[in-house]
């Protein structure tokens, strides 16, 4: 049954300077449907949703909302007029409360006095605002934090829930969810799914953007594929058109061949070759008496619920979190000056400088703040970690060598860009992730700590990243992969460490029979 059209994009074109991000796109959203939008990194999904909500203006084309021309002036305007968006990147404001974030720009609604005309004035009654925020959060099913909680005390995943609450509080008729689920914990995802299905049952519409094919196929009624700024095809669930292979082929323009994860089940490592260890480490209430060993040529997966402390463990292993007790040591062969013999020596890793000096690379989950300098070209971002690789006499930078080095990495990871001089802020989420990855790949680190390495990355690149990790392992490099996706942890790890409440609850060795259900019981 065809539902009523609520929103239409006709012949829409968007150019960013010389780059065409959307090319004469036609797109329809129907009431009572969850419309999936899928495509490779840089295909134009986020651009399309940004145009629909007034974040960007279009160069050509028309838009109609409920049959009337739609000219959104800004994201706030769009939200107040029926179309809300939860953006891919962090959208909360620091140093204010949860309630102030939820009711951003609407604080006057909680002013002390109300005029006959219905407008408000006078001092803001904070309690009223906090109570209203609590009500929105409660309706969503979130009770862990409250309206009065300062946003800085809320972790990255939960801040996304606040963004959802902010949009839901406006009761939009169309909700756009732009690659939000990867930034959420499982609990957060459940909240999000129940919200979008509720909207569908209320005859409203949802546009759901995600790279997770299983998720998008499960949640959406139709799937529209974008590629290089063009609409390629729309798949209808009701008509039985959901075929993962066909969808993937439409997305990437070719058949996806080869193994997705690594194909072998040999998880053996040389126990005598420890390259990095954490001993009796304590960091506030985040983790206590934590012990971990990484071996040469090992992929060590670390999993758990998002707030279990695994992201902090990754940072501590890189020396970026000061430990209250315990230590992190890197081990390397060195010549003992007394005996003149080669032996394994431990080096304390107490700061990122020392970690990098030792040959450790770290890609953070919080990509835009901790892994990239958005207001800098791709070139600067990739080159900065590998200055030693191409510097002459340790200090002098030859721009030709630098460009050659950067182009090699950008080419290797197929970063979609017009030039390496392009600013990172103009790249799509997945291409940003590739830049963050390229920074450390180019440096040829012996140890890589990758926190959610495939977050926001499309299926084709994901496969290539897994294969790259496997190749690095085969070269004798060691990798710590922190992830919230159990499938990739099972698919890639030699050893899988599960953390719960800052404690290591179980370690699994690579096995064909390892299942998600077996692991989950040690996580919750």
């Amino acid at each position, binding site marked *: 049954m065809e539902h009523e059209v609520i929103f239409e994009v006709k012949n829409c074109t968007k150019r960013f*300077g*010389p*780059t065409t991000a959307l*090319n*004469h796109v036609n797109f329809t959203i129907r009431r009572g449907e969850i419309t999936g939008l899928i495509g*490779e990194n840089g295909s134009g999904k986020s651009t399309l949703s940004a145009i629909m909500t007034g974040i960007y203006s279009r160069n050509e084309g028309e838009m109609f909302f409920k049959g009337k021309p739609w000219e959104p002036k800004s994201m706030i305007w769009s939200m107040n007029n029926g179309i809300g968006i939860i953006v891919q990147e962090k959208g909360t404001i*620091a140093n204010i409360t949860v309630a102030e974030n939820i009711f951003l720009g609407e604080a006057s609604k909680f002013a002390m006095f109300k005029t006959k005309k219905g407008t408000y004035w006078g001092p803001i009654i904070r309690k009223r605002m906090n109570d209203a925020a609590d009500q929105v959060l409660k309706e969503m099913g979130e009770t862990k934090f409250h309206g009065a909680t300062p946003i800085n005390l809320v972790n990255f995943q939960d801040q996304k829930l606040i963004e959802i609450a902010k949009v839901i509080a406006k009761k939009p008729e169309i909700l756009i969810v732009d690659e939000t689920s990867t930034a959420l914990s499982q609990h957060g995802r459940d909240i999000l799914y129940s919200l979008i299905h509720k909207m569908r049952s209320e005859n409203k519409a949802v546009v759901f953007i995600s790279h997770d094919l299983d998720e998008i196929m499960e949640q959406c009624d139709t799937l529209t594929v974008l*590629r*290089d700024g*063009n609409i*390629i095809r729309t798949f209808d669930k009701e008509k039985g058109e959901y075929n993962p292979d066909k969808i993937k082929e439409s997305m*990437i*323009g*070719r058949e996806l061949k*080869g193994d997705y994860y690594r194909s072998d089940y040999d998880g053996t490592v040389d126990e005598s070759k420890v390259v990095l260890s954490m001993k009796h480490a304590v960091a506030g209430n985040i983790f206590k008496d934590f012990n971990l060993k990484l071996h040469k040529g090992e992929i060590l997966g670390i999993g758990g619920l998002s707030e279990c402390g695994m992201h902090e463990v990754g940072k501590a292993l*890189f020396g*970026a979190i000061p430990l209250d007790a315990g230590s992190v040591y890197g081990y390397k062969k060195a010549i003992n000056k007394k005996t003149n013999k080669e032996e394994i020596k431990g080096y304390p890793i107490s700061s*990122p*400088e020392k*970690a*990098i*000096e030792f040959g450790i690379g770290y890609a*953070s989950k919080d990509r835009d*703040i*901790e*892994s*990239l*300098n*958005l*207001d*800098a*070209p791709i070139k*600067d971002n990739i*080159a*900065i*970690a590998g*200055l030693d690789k191409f510097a002459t006499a*340790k*200090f*002098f*930078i*030859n*721009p030709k060598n630098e460009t050659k080095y950067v182009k090699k990495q950008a080419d*290797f*990871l*197929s970063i979609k860009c*017009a*030039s390496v*001089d*392009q*600013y990172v*802020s103009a790249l799509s989420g997945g291409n940003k992730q*590739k830049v963050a990855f390229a*920074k450390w790949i180019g440096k040829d680190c012996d140890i890589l700590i990758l926190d959610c390495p495939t977050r926001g990355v499309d299926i*084709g*690149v994901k496969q*290539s990243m897994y*294969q*790259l990790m496997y*190749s690095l392992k085969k070269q004798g490099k060691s990798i710590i992969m922190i992830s919230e996706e159990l499938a990739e942890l099972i698919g890639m790890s030699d050893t899988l460490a599960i953390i719960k409440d800052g404690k290591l609850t179980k370690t699994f060795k690579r096995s064909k029979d390892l299942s998600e259900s077996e692991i989950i019981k040690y996580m919750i």
Partner: protein
Amino acid sequence: MSIKNLFKNNKTVEAPKTNANGTIEVESQEEKKEKTLKAFSRQKLLGNLLPFVGLVVLFVFYSFIVLNEGYLYEDALWATFDRGVYVAIMAIGASFLFTLGQFDLSLGSAMGLSAATALLVYRGTGNLGLTIVVCLLTAIIVSVLNIVFSSILRVPIFIMSIAMMTVLQKVILGLISAFSSSGESSINLSPNPFNDTFMYTKWFRLVILIAYFVICFIIFRYLKFGRKAKFLGGNPFCARLTGISPRTNSIIAFLICAIGVGLTALTFVAETPIVTSATGTTYGMDIMVAIVIGGMPMSGGARSKITASVCGAFTLAFLEAVLRAFPETSGEGMIQIVKAVLFIVLVFMSSWSYRGKTLPR
């Protein structure tokens, strides 16, 4: 699959595009990339050239006024050079601070103090070598004190530098009262002992300017420190996780800047061996305005360029010279107002494009 080709195979096949007439347009990836690259280069070139265009326009306008009024053209140009050279030398060093997203308002006062100590040492010893060393050391010590205090008190260096500006002026006053005859409000050398030396000539100032600029340009563009400073200015959080120490790099930047301050003090003393408590006080603001006029973003980071310092300093000098040519705008107050308005307009314009995307400090 070879590791080299892991990501290669992800290159997508371009979807066919249809034009308004319904015919399919075929544009190869290479053609598209070449077109995009050309457009990027044009945009970048335009952005880099704009401040220089401003400088040339003011230069032409100033030349027109000078020739029209019948002044000696060469003398007028050198006078403008002298007006801009002190700001230019200090602005070159200050570019490193700007790049880090920091600024030191006490640079002018530090220059005044360096000049005062240099004068006192020369007056007491007559030793030029020692004078140069003391002059540079004073500027370095002031810089280090700025960093140390801001680090101990955990206040931004910019705030610290405001306090330091007042303190330095008081120190100069103290030196004047301690080492000058009663009734004098300055430390001076009379007659000027450098009068017949190379140090007194405009060529000395030009050589110092060029030498310092070339060294700083090389550091900025071709040494690892320059890259690290730009990255640190753009995103200190990410820089730290890339192994760049904010403290070490800030110290290096302040030291480079201090050398510029010391060199300025030296050229100043050689030309005008008189220091009062007001010496250099307006330079702090002038440096900031000059750097921004020259095209440096207020936020620092990757878009920073060291050429902004020299370009901006002389743009400001020509602007001042042009303003002084007209009776309506020749007053000191009016010149300061024009500079302030220009500064605000330029900061507003640069904010318009990308300031919102930069990180809070």
